[in-house]
Structure formats: structure tokens, C-alpha cells
């Protein structure tokens, strides 16, 4: 059914009894052409684009828990294209363009809000680095504006300009950066995929990957064996475990990243603000909650929860930067499991097993990549060729050292990002 204001009116006048299920609950079939492991944002968008762009229909998405229950449902909802290294630059640019047409494509309001993102800098050296980034963004065809201190003040008058430990020199404004409603993205893709015949199978955990003669033949699940000639792994923090079922070790370590939301407040923060010196970024949801996050807890973990030191550090960053929000109260904090790669950039590639594909390593930046990742991964699975904007996300770059994308410059080793 098509969603519209008219439909809301019609249904509202008839007791809202006509709304249809947003997706089916199909019984898994014995065989699919393609099985996608993981019903998160990336998995759902992969299935959607396999169906929409490549005309494939016999597809299943297998989800251990509930659709959209992974990192797509537990993040700080930031959507941006402000990368500067080749590979990342073209990919996120492509993904942002897809965001800009997503709602009409999905017929679902994901509340993509291009409210502008400002990265603050605090020294001449940081300004130079952000200038390099901003110029790279414009080279890529995206938008960037270098703000001086007064420019930042015009946008963010509530920052503490006088007393901070790291004085504000300026900021890099990315006007097309912003936020989106995270759950809606998962549900919109799920609805779109389902309506194109994709079977979304929840509560179905993959327990094994069947390989015969170097070729994938299917998967074992808690709901029985399913045959498939192509299998895509899109399971974020669980990539290591699923890859191990195919005998692979990945350049991935799973870490916990926390995020926070406050009680609802009348509008106070209109942009997305990022404070690198404090590993702090914040925006305000349409509901009024301040949504913010910080750095990794920094230890390998599969417990989707964090500890106090990072929580306190995040609040401290908030207080030094914008003491105007001191009286806001944190309502809820949560943790997601991040699939951290050595260089902090993702992987969309074939694996040594024929027919087995991998989309992983999104670290703590996967949300904004949902459209682009699904599009590029679907392209790879359907055509066996890399999609140009994601062509550099190779699995073997670590081994060879060629094409590393270490945006932070902290090193292509684990535990440095």
C-alpha cells in the first residue's frame, strides 16, 4: 500500500483498520538464489537493491533477532559525506546522494534532515587538516565551507567561546550533512524489500555456512538448512563469528561504542556539532532529545553496553564545549558492537570462497553508509563486479598495504582508531 497524507486521512476516518502489515513473516524456503545474513540496515538495503536494481526476487534475509535490531537501531543517526581519502570520498558522496532521494524511492519518511554538520577545530594545524578535507569534499563535488571563529559563532552561538580548554578556532561546515530517523531507515528498506518479494526471516540465526569444493552451497540455521548459490555476510560486529563458519579470519575486532539520549527538550541545537578534541558529537532529534556519543570504550567486547569512564568523558566534553546543556538529563545510554578494521574503513568484497561475499568493517560510521553500502554490495553480488564508488573497499589492502584508507592517521593496526 502506498503511504501518503491522503492515505492517513482515509484510514483515520475509518478507524485505522485498513493499515496493512509492513512486511510478511514468511516461512523460510529450502532454497534461495541469494541469502543475505543479517537483517540490519546494510543487509536490508542490499536485499532491496538486489530486487530493485537487479530484478532478482528469490532472496532471503536471515536475521538472528528482529529486523533493524543491530547498529541501525542504536546509533547517533548522523548522515554525512565529509571524508577526504580516495575510496571513502567517492563512496560516501554516492551514499549521500542516495539519501537525498531515499524517501520518495522508499515511499517512507526516514526524516532525513540536512541541517548542516560542523566539525570544530582548535589549532592552526587542525585547520589545515580540515582545509585539506574540505577541499577534497569539493573536489568530489560535495559541499564544504571553512568557518572562522566568528563564522562558528554565527551558527552555534551557545558554544563556550571564552573559557574552553581547547579554544575554538573555527569549523568546517558541511551543509548537506545531517541526521535521519534510524529505525525508519531499517523499516523503509524492509518494507521495500518485502514488497518486491524478498523473504525477511526473523528469529533465524545462521549456525553454519555450507561450502563444497570451494563454493558456497547454503547455510545452516536455527530454522533449518537453506540452500543458496550466493551468500552475503552483512553482520557488523558479528562478522568475525560468521566468517569463522566459512573458515575465515577477518581484519576485524569488535568493540563497544556508547551513545546517549536526553529527555525531550524544546529546540536548542539545530546542527550536528562535532568536537574532535573531545571525541564528542551531538544533534537534537525531532522529538527533542539530545542525541550524542563519544569514542569507543576501547576494549574488544560483544556486550552491547559500556562502562562509566567513557560516559563521564563524553559528558565532560559536553560541559566544556556547550555548558548550556548542563541541565539536560541523560535518559538512556546504550552500546553497539562496532566491527573495527585496522584502518577504520570498510570492506565490500568477494571472499576466497566462491559465492560468498562480505560487507563489513563499518566501524562506528555505518549508518550513513546504509544506502550506498546496500547498493554497492548488491551490485557486487549480482554482477560479480565491484561497483565503482566502493571499488577500493578491498579485503586484501591490509596485507598488501596498497590503498589503505586511514582517515584518522592513527595507523592501519588494530586498536588505534
Amino acid at each position, binding site marked *: 500500500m502506498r503511504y501518503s497524507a491522503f492515505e492517513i486521512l482515509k484510514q483515520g476516518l475509518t478507524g485505522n483498520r485498513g493499515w496493512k502489515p509492513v512486511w510478511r513473516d514468511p516461512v523460510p524456503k529450502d532454497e534461495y538464489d541469494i541469502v543475505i545474513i543479517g537483517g540490519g540496515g546494510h543487509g536490508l538495503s542490499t536485499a532491496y537493491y538486489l530486487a530493485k536494481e537487479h530484478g532478482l526476487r528469490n532472496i532471503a534475509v536471515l536475521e538472528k533477532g528482529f529486523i533493524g535490531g543491530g547498529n541501525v537501531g542504536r546509533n547517533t543517526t548522523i548522515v554525512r559525506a565529509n571524508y577526504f581519502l580516495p575510496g571513502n570520498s567517492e563512496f560516501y558522496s554516492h551514499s549521500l546522494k542516495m539519501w537525498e532521494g531515499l524517501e520518495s524511492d522508499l515511499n517512507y519518511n526516514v526524516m532525513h534532515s540536512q541541517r548542516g554538520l560542523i566539525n570544530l577545530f582548535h589549532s592552526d594545524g587542525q585547520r589545515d587538516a580540515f582545509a585539506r578535507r574540505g577541499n577534497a569534499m569539493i573536489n568530489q563535488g560535495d559541499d564544504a565551507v571553512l568557518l572562522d571563529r566568528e563564522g562558528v559563532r554565527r551558527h552555534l552561538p551557545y558554544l563556550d567561546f571564552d573559557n574552553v580548554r581547547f579554544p575554538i578556532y573555527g569549523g568546517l561546515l558541511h551543509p548537506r550533512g545531517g541526521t535521519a530517523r534510524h529505525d525508519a531507515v531499517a523499516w523503509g528498506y524492509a518494507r521495500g524489500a518485502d514488497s518486491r518479494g524478498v523473504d525477511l526471516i526473523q528469529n533465524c540465526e545462521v549456525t553454519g555456512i555450507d561450502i563444497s569444493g570451494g563454493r558456497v552451497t547454503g547455510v545452516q540455521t536455527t530454522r533449518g538448512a537453506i540452500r543458496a548459490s550466493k551468500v552475503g555476510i552483512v553482520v557488523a560486529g558479528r*562478522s568475525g*563469528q560468521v566468517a569463522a563458519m566459512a573458515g575465515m579470519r577477518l581484519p576485524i575486532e569488535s568493540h563497544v561504542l556508547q551513545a546517549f539520549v536526553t529527555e525531550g527538550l524544546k529546540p536548542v541545537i539545530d546542527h550536528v556539532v562535532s568536537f574532535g578534541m573531545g571525541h564528542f558529537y551531538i544533534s537534537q532529534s525531532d522529538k527533542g532529545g539530545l542525541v550524542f556519543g563519544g569514542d569507543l570504550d576501547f576494549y*574488544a*567486547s560483544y*556486550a552491547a553496553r559500556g*562502562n562509566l569512564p567513557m560516559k563521564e568523558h563524553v559528558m565532560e566534553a559536553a560541559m566544556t564545549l556547550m555548558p548550556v546543556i548542563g541541565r539536560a538529563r541523560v535518559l538512556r545510554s546504550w552500546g553497539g558492537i562496532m566491527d573495527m578494521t585496522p584502518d577504520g574503513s570498510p570492506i565490500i568484497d568477494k571472499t576466497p570462497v566462491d559465492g560468498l561475499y562480505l560487507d563489513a568493517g563499518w566501524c562506528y560510521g555505518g549508518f550513513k553508509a546504509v544506502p550506498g553500502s546496500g547498493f554497492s554490495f548488491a551490485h557486487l553480488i549480482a554482477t560479480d563486479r565491484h561497483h565503482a564508488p566502493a571499488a577500493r573497499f578491498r579485503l586484501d589492502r591490509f596485507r598488501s598495504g596498497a590503498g589503505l584508507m586511514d582517515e584518522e592517521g592513527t595507523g592501519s593496526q588494530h*586498536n588505534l582508531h
Partner: protein
Amino acid sequence: MRLPCPCCGDRDIREFTYRGAALARPGEGAGIDRWDDYLHLRDNPAGAVRDLWYHGGGCGAWLVVERDTVTHAVDGARLAAEGL
């Protein structure tokens, strides 16, 4: 979270820095695959791990900590200098 430093006793995690899996460094002349293993590829288990932590906010010792990545339970810690 707290870790049992063999030198200092139970200490808050904010005194420590994490490094990751406790792995043996390849010897001189090791091939590119061996290095790829050491530098990049990980078992990344959901469960028991042995990993390296630095007590930089305390005695400066590098520790091998036995830990569970799902429950965060810590089984023990010893000095890395005594061997991985």
C-alpha cells in the same frame, strides 16, 4: 570495570590502555602472510580472550589479561614480561 594489576591490585579501568589480542610477533624474515596474521587478522572471539593492557596510569606494566568479551568477566592478569 576493574582489572587486577599484579603490581598494584584491583584498579579502575581508567588507569589502563588496551592493545588487543596477546599475539607473538613474527620473527625476522617472516613472510607477508605471517605479518598479515599478526597485524590484521583476528579470531575476535565472543568469549574468552587473552589480551594486552598497559597500566600507564599506574605502574607502567604491560599485562596479559584473561577476560571474556561477552560477560566482561576477568579471570586474571599477569605481567606480559613473563611471556605471552
